């Protein structure tokens, strides 16, 4: 069975602080993993993606994520957040057998000034 869990519905951090948004996945096959961000009244935008190779992948705007097969996780990190990072972040899993993708519930990130 395929599923994605984002255990934190809402995360609040101060501007300049570091950030980690958690994502756990379950996949019967090789997982293709993505992080998307959604700003208000906009579509989802891709931050980064992982399939194989170096487990730490770099994305846009200083975001990175680390894949862990042993922990079935794909946590998103940023060293220093900016107020403009406030948005909803989705962890997404894609099966390697077809085009179906599975979304986490999303994590609302609030960056306080």
């Amino acid at each position, binding site marked *: 069975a395929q599923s994605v869990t984002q255990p934190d519905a809402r995360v609040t951090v101060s501007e300049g602080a570091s950030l980690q948004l958690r994502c756990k996945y379950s996949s019967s096959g090789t997982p*293709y993993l*993505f992080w*998307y961000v959604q700003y208000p*009244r*906009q*579509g*989802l*935008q*891709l931050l980064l*993606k992982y*399939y194989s190779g170096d487990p730490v992948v770099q994305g846009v705007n200083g975001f990175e994520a680390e894949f862990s097969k042993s922990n079935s996780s794909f946590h998103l990190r940023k060293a220093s957040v900016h107020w403009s990072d406030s948005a909803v972040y*989705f962890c997404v899993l*894609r*099966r*390697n057998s*077809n*085009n*179906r*993708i*599975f*979304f*986490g*519930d*999303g994590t609302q990130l609030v960056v306080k000034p």
Partner: protein
Amino acid sequence: GPKVLQIPSHQIIDMGQMVTLNCDPVSNHLYFYWYKQILGQQMEFLVNFYNGKVMEKSKLFKDQFSVERPDGSYFTLKIQPTALEDSAVYFCASSSSGGNYAEQFFGPGTRLTVL
């Protein structure tokens, strides 16, 4: 970057009526998708579409749903007749390939309210 547009942004209709949601995908993309997100719930896959055909659909894609992209125009999702449980935000996406690593570009969503 490439943008997917969705028209309208909001739609309110009476139960039993027909509704068509329109998606203007990225211009050179060939694969199209619809997703449904009920308020407070996960976004869920509905259908994907390629070369004029439905490639895969989920159990959420009821018989009352249909998709088409006539002559390279809008990619549409039609619901006829609508039901109260169809109230949700519907997201369209497109990609240039169907590969597993292909990025899907998402529209901003159409909020459908069925009264």
